């Protein structure tokens, strides 16, 4: 006899409750992005505005620097993703597939540098880029991307370890050198890890706040994060934030990573799991 599924109902209720809690900030951004400015400060707060103001989005897209900020963010994402995919995969290859002097030492050093917080190295970097005349440009945030990011080296290396060395040895007998083994044999097999790191890198640069804050003062070079911080002010009273427009911009900023998750969740989950545990 089948009993009434109390347990299942209880479990679904908890899941839905937690899901609603976790999604609340997203919902609240959306709901506030459709209000008028007086509607934001309406008390008691309504869950959803009576007359949704989609014109807020039109205003943000037409009358603000949103598209310019978006372009800058995209430049950072594309350049850094290309840079880190090339350089980090190259660095990871010998660590996983070759025997050489100092292999263990270099790998340990790379693991150690994974933990160094960006703020602890920022001042000398700032001085280098200042000497190069690169302040107020995107270069300080693009060029380092081409010099292998330790975390990505680690992810690549973990994946390359799973590729049997015999494949490379066979290719060498056929006359390939190490570079050809890397580019012809290993890279095509590692497509999933390239996608994983590409996606994680894109999410990371979409959210990066600290570096643009330091390197870029000119408004037209700001990416979305520091651009959003500058914010929308009420005309004539620079201390009053136009929260409805601010929320419309925030909504536009959270849609792309949401889509990216929907398209590539498998890769994101894989990448994050790989940092956790390996059997």
């Amino acid at each position: 006899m089948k009993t009434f599924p109390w347990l299942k109902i209880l479990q679904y209720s908890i899941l839905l409750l937690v899901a609603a809690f976790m999604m609340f900030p997203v919902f609240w951004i959306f709901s506030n992005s459709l209000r008028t400015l007086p509607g934001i400060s309406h008390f008691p707060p309504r869950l959803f505005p009576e007359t949704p103001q989609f014109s807020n989005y039109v205003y943000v897209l037409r009358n603000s620097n949103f598209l310019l900020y978006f372009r800058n963010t995209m430049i950072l994402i594309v350049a850094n993703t290309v840079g880190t995919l090339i350089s980090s995969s190259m660095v990871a290859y010998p660590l996983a597939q070759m025997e050489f002097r100092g292999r263990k030492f270099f790998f340990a050093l790379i693991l150690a540098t994974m933990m160094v917080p960006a703020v602890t190295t920022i001042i000398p970097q700032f001085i280098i880029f200042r000497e190069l005349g690169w302040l107020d440009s995107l270069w300080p945030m693009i060029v380092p991307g081409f010099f292998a990011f330790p975390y990505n080296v680690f992810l690549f290396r973990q994946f390359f370890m799973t590729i049997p060395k015999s494949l490379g040895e066979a290719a060498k007998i056929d006359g390939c050198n190490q570079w050809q083994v890397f580019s012809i044999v290993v890279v095509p097999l590692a497509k999933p890890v390239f996608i994983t790191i590409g996606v994680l890198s894109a999410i990371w640069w979409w959210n990066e706040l600290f570096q643009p804050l330091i390197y870029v003062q000119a408004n037209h070079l700001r990416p979305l994060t520091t651009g959003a911080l500058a914010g929308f002010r009420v005309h004539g009273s620079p201390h009053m934030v136009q929260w409805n427009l601010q929320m419309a911009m925030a909504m536009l900023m959270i849609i792309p990573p949401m889509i990216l998750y929907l398209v590539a969740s498998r890769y994101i989950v894989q990448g994050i799991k790989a940092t956790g545990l390996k059997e």
Partner: protein
Amino acid sequence: MNRAERMKNNLAAYGFLSPWFIGFLLFTGGPIIASLVLSLTRWNLLSPPEFIGFRNYITMFSPGSGFLNSLRATLIYTVISVVVSVTASLFMATLLNFRLKFMGFFQFCFFIPAVMPSVALAFVFQLIFNQHLGILNYGLSVIGIAAQPNWLNDTFWVWVSLGIVTIFTYSTGQMMLIFNAAFKDVPQHLYEAADIEGANYVQRFWHVTMPYISPIILFNVVVGTVNSFNTAFSIVFPLTGGGPANETTVLSLELYNSAFRMFNMGMASAIATVLFIIVATVGAIQFRVSKKLVHYD
């Protein structure tokens, strides 16, 4: 392999490593040493640096300094963010392991806040936490709580606020996925055995799941501690700006203020050096822990 071949092989390997090696010298290792040197100077970027010995460190450690305040803020922030992240992620991962349908949908809902830019998260929580107009205090008034906190402008409640926001950060989402994967690795036959023994849900969790999960909890605690030094700025800066009254000015924010608002590069470098020593210590612990738990080879 003979000697010449081995030489050639080593050189090829170093060739592959060269991008990292240059990056290490210019952007990590070099700057760490440069910070150490700069920390012994007074420098405002305009006139040349002036050597002043350990005076920055003496100022830093004298009572009532901004640095000691930020050390305290960092300690509180780290404890809150690690405890909240680990607890919330463990809880959500447990829920994601119910044997039910639509789990992909629930994982989406649980994880999505993690990929939101911290700036967007900070903005919406400024609205939610608003003392007079925010929905949180409205909710409290509805359930009859008259004394409603001024969340972001009170030196106690601001920490509670940061704790709540931590639930929605990337590090929580990341830990949730790691726990979720770990749960799936628990051998199924142990659960079946527990079911035969007539164990209830709580007993199953404590006696079957926990022994498998506890090393991963430890791992996430240590990794979360190191990560909190990195993530503190991106949450605290847009949400509280270090306030109220410097209560939440964590080390990274103190460093940012010294270097890029006061242009006191020597002092900022001294803070960077101390922060590096703290992270290196925590990192050394992490390395020992993960050596026992994680098999890199």
